[in-house]
């Protein structure tokens, strides 16, 4: 036991420093967003190994981490596995498999990344979707020897459904095919064809060996001497750029809650798109009541805030005491949201129970939540074979009108079995691009 620490003075005050005005720019904070990249592909094709390699080669690991992995591998009686840097659960290490998604950050050449390791095993597809839905870009990994497999195709399909269209393909384990260029060219062609059917055009297809560290960070002049293209890391770096540009668009203020903790009645929510200013007239849907904004509340800020833009969390008070509650959507009078009872969506069913027509499900769009029913299925797609390259399409009918239009920044509709527990193995859907423009409520204001 170390010595008991000394007591502190009676009139203790903690460390204080002045607030930096002007935000992160003035404080030298990180201005740039981190590019989030998910690594997907068939089980055992080397996704976790690749990420471990990237972290090790870019010197992003804390001291002692590699040694800890070495010890774990020895205990499991295995040669060194870079994958253990990600597969940290005992169950994962014992089976050399990824069970759940890991998200881990690193910086290189001044660019921040967050790499998301997705599991390739079919059983963990909900975890793969959880990881991939957070990504802006993807690396689709293929084992050079095994070629395209079931989950290679399914993950490709999911990427397109999730709207992750920036994709780099890595043909891994080139060491197992004697670094042969012909093999790479065959897979290059095959994967481009497949992804083309999904309207994904890969930014780059690169040969690598994750385990040997060939063409990951460092180019490889021996086996891959024939390769004139970029390393994987170079390909990643060359693609960074903001692709989550905040929508300026019309105002869509989704209401999360209304607080009455003191004499104020504070409406709390998030700006999915557009701007608000003090004094603006805002209409709240579905009730269609209007009020002017009296104030924007910003705790801890000595200067009153006059305006907030897209993506920001907001807390406002209103001039008029109109009824507003969670799920309402505020907009300006000029640009109201589309409200409809029906929508068309592409979906991916993650539950173990089949989805049935007319079965009630809970539909969620941002903070709106209504009961909905699947009324028809237009097309089905077999994710394993991707036959005829058709989309999953279906129509949903809802119990109430919901504000739903493309101005919602997040493709936020989710669902759970109505009344059931949304926790375990619950179905989740993947959003469709087009909302069904039928059964639409007459636009506001009524003329």
């Amino acid at each position: 036991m170390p010595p008991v620490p000394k007591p502190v003075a009676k009139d203790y005050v903690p460390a204080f420093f002045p607030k930096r005005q002007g935000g992160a720019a003035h404080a030298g904070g990180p201005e740039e967003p981190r590019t989030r990249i998910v690594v997907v592909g068939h089980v055992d094709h080397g996704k976790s190994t690749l990420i471990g390699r990237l972290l090790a080669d870019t010197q992003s690991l804390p001291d002692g981490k590699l040694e800890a992995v070495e010890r774990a591998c020895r205990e499991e009686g295995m040669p060194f596995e870079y994958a253990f840097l990600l597969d940290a659960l005992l169950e994962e290490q014992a089976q050399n498999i990824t069970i759940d998604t890991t998200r881990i950050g690193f910086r290189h050449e001044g660019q921040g990344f967050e790499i998301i390791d997705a599991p390739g095993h079919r059983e963990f597809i909900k975890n793969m979707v959880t990881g991939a839905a957070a990504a802006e870009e993807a690396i689709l990994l293929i084992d050079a020897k095994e070629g395209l497999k079931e989950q290679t195709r399914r993950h490709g399909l999911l990427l397109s459904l999730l709207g992750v269209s920036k994709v780099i393909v890595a043909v891994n384990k080139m060491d197992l095919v004697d670094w042969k260029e012909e093999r790479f060219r065959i897979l290059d062609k095959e994967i481009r064809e497949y992804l083309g059917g999904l309207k994904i055009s890969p930014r780059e297809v690169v040969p690598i060996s994750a385990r040997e560290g060939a063409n990951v960070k460092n180019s490889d002049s021996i086996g891959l001497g024939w390769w004139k293209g970029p390393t994987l890391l170079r390909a990643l770096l060359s693609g960074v750029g903001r692709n989550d540009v905040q929508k300026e668009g019309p105002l869509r203020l989704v209401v999360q809650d209304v607080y009455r903790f003191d004499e104020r009645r504070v409406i709390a929510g998030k700006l999915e798109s557009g701007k608000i200013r003090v004094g603006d007239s805002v209409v709240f849907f579905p009730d269609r009541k209007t009020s002017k904004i009296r104030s924007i509340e910003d705790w801890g800020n000595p200067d009153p805030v006059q305006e907030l833009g897209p993506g920001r969390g907001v807390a406002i008070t209103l001039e008029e005491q109109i009824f507003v509650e969670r799920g309402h959507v505020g907009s300006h009078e000029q640009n109201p949201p589309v409200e409809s009872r029906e929508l068309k969506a592409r979906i991916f069913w993650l539950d173990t129970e089949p989805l049935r027509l007319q079965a009630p499900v809970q539909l969620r769009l941002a903070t709106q939540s209504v009961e909905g029913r699947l009324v028809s299925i237009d097309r089905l797609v077999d994710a394993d074979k991707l036959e005829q390259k058709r989309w999953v399409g279906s129509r949903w009918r809802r119990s109430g009108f919901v504000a739903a239009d493309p101005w919602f920044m997040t493709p936020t509709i989710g669902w759970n079995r109505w009344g059931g527990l949304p926790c375990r193995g619950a179905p989740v859907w993947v959003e469709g691009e087009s909302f069904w423009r039928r059964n639409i409520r007459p636009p506001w204001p009524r003329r």
Partner: protein
Amino acid sequence: MSYLQHLEDQSIYIFREAFANFKNMAMPWSMGKDSNTLIWLAKKAFAGKIPFPLVHIDTTYEFPEMLAFREWARNHYGIDLIVMVNEEARKRGVGYESHDPVTVTHELKSLALQQALAKYKWDALVTGIRRDEDSTRAKERYFSPRTAENEWEYRDQPPEFWGQFTTAVKPGEHVRVQPLLDWTELDVWEYVRREGIPVPKMYFAENGRRYRSLGCWPITQSIESQVSTIDGIVEELKTTKTAERAGRAQDHHERNAMQKLRAKGFM
């Protein structure tokens, strides 16, 4: 919009989603940098008033400064604070003098929390964990359910994306709400600096040593550092190769110590 601003907005969104969906939530609070960032974010999320109690799980091995900070903050922020001690385990003689750090951490932290859960019947707990702290936390969800036994079913976590979270629990279960999951240690310090959030002085060097992560005094090591300013901390973190929790003995007691602790309810 700066990345830090994005993180702040996201955390505020998570706080509000939790409060809108759960009936009886609480926020464990350890007086460290992450905890104080959470208070700050909660103040912003709820326009100045934190509408749920804070809970300090007092292991009875707290640094004197942390206790002093606790009392100072209770006043300063006007928070509703519940202090919990696992008296039963202390009576049995569980302590660092005689037991290993994993056992003591489990008894005096996780079980104390479980006792508090049984007493107050919280359905959600806001925690300050971050993915970059350790590799099991890197697999966490923003809303992470725990069983009635306070266990984390890491082999079967719910799907979670596009701002939709697990918000229903069976009786006795609760959800860990984790607004700082996407933040890094560096992000927290940059935010502390940007906002001017008060933190304990132990984070700043005295006689060539400072603390990077704060826990029970018998098992928490300080690091060698000359850094005595907030700018210094930010700069040091940009170049350091030492893991944040390297000085926390319970993490390194055995292989996968964190997994075992966290599966049983540790934060």
